[in-house]
């Protein structure tokens, strides 16, 4: 009898199992447009560029709804590896930032539209890095030497031999995503940035060295003095470095050329609000997005906006430590951010009025002190940790003169807590 039941059960199981054995792999419905990575560096890759100009042609065309797959490079187009060190950072050539993949023309999109880009997936490389580059970063006057942290990445966490006891959750987003500017935008943006540079502000003029495509933006090329740098984010998006642009969110970007010419690059495996050391966990990745055209909406949406849901909660810590920053300063000094204003008034003051930049600095320096004191990390390790796991947030902008920025440390990153 027992044997009979066994036979019946086996028979039924076999019947039930039959559909499972069928292969679903070959049944497809998506239209995919792949923008592949070719060659070792951006300079070798026809699908890569690192300057903005409307003469840079689209390398592919997609329809709204298509799954567009961007194979992206890290922000520095680097050759850094897990065994790199500060000597490798000292030899970085920053003229190559940021390698962008694309651009991709969207059928039916026109100047004046808005492109709604939904992030479907971000598959990171196995390796990422955070560096301190001398002269760059929010505390560049304090951290003046190169520093390197290499991360081993999975789809759950990133860990590093240089950051013992710490595991950073996977919260990837596209550090850079945008559309190509038109001729009018190039004209306007170059003019306003030149105006800022003329009075000593930090604005990066066109730089043909290291520019790609060299035939358009390189030395001697027709647009060498009109190809925009990718460092500042602008109305077309680009290097926004906003961590809330997680998988599942939709990023709205104005279109300035027909086809919009969408590009993506500079993926961050994780980043705190502020990206204070100048780099997040920088990595290459495969990014999948879909698009929708919102006709004529460029009249109302003139800079990028983001639509999302639960994602903004998902990246919140379950435990935190927070510091409170006020716009305080040392009397007799002019903060590095204010030097171009040449305001003698502020030099001898012990604080400034309604100044969020100084408040952010105060919150961050307290946080670095807290991390070094509490977790036995060096100041460099603390600065790196703050860049990837501390969120700078606005507390209030009404209680004059002391507006508040807070720094929120995600305590979930400490493995033993």
């Amino acid at each position: 009898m027992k044997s009979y039941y066994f036979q019946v059960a086996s028979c039924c199981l076999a019947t039930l199992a039959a559909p499972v054995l069928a292969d679903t792999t070959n049944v497809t419905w998506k239209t995919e447009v792949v923008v592949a990575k070719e060659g070792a560096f951006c300079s070798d890759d026809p699908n890569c560029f690192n300057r903005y100009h409307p003469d840079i042609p689209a390398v592919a065309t997609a329809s709204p709804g298509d799954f567009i797959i961007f194979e992206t490079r890290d922000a520095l187009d680097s050759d850094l590896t897990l065994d790199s060190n500060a000597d490798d950072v000292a030899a970085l050539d920053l003229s190559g930032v940021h390698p962008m993949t694309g651009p991709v023309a969207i059928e039916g999109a026109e100047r004046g539209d808005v492109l709604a880009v939904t992030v479907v997936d971000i598959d990171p490389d196995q390796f990422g890095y955070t560096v301190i580059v001398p002269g760059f970063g929010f505390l560049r006057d304090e951290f003046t030497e190169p520093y390197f942290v290499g991360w081993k990445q999975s789809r759950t966490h990133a860990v590093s031999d240089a950051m013992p006891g710490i595991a950073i959750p996977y919260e990837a987003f596209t550090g850079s995503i945008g559309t190509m500017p038109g001729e009018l935008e190039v004209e306007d943006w170059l003019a306003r940035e030149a105006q800022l540079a003329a009075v000593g502000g930090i604005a990066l003029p066109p730089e043909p060295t290291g520019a790609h495509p060299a035939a358009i933006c390189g030395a001697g090329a027709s647009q060498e003095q009109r190809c925009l740098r990718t460092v500042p984010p602008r109305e077309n998006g680009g290097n926004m470095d906003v961590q809330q642009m997680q998988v599942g969110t939709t990023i709205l970007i104005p279109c300035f050329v027909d086809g919009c010419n969408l590009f993506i690059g500079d993926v961050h495996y994780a980043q705190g609000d502020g990206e204070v050391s100048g780099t997040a966990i920088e990595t290459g990745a495969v990014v999948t997005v879909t698009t929708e055209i919102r006709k004529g909406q460029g009249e109302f949406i003139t800079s990028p906006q983001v639509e999302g849901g639960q994602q903004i909660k998902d990246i919140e810590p379950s435990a935190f430590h927070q510091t409170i920053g006020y716009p305080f300063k040392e009397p007799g000094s002019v903060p590095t951010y204010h030097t171009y204003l040449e305001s003698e008034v502020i030099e001898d003051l012990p604080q400034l009025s309604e100044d969020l930049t100084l408040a952010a600095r105060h919150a961050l320096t307290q946080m670095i002190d807290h991390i070094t004191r509490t977790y036995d990390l060096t100041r460099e390790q603390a600065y790196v940790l703050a860049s990837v796991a501390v969120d700078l947030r606005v507390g209030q902008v009404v209680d004059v003169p002391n507006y508040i920025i807070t720094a929120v440390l995600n305590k979930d990153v400490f493995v033993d807590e």
Partner: protein
Amino acid sequence: MNRRGFLAVVGAVLAAPAYAHTPYGQWVVYRQKHLLVGSHRGDLRTYDLAKEVVAALEEELPEAQARVARGPRPQRIASLMGTGQLFLAVMSADEALRMARAETPFEGYPPTPVHAVAALDPDYLLFAAPEFPRDHGRLVAQAVDHAGLGVRPTEHTTHAGAAAYWS
């Protein structure tokens, strides 16, 4: 020129052209502050020797605040030297020759000639950009010599300051 003058000129003169080539002006400050000695991961012998050169400079010219810069491949040395961001590098004689002629693997880079400061072993030399000031070349050659690290280069165009020292 004394040692302090050496440092001042490194900052004021050498770094000036680099401003036009680097995206972050303050990155130049670092390259003003330190005398970088280039090497690359494609030939790790250059890295080992560059570290020895830096140790010699720290001993004899501490104000230079020398440190090693290791590029991913030899083309990075051409890129940094060709844009005034690097003035000293350890390379093999053959590699330096090909860089000067923009031959493989330096196609796509302008010819980047370099002048020898010291021969570190039969195959590798310390090179300087031609615009590296004469006095600096002399002081660097002296430091390398005093450390017992290098000898007079004989088969390459020698940097004027180094030639003055070795003569």
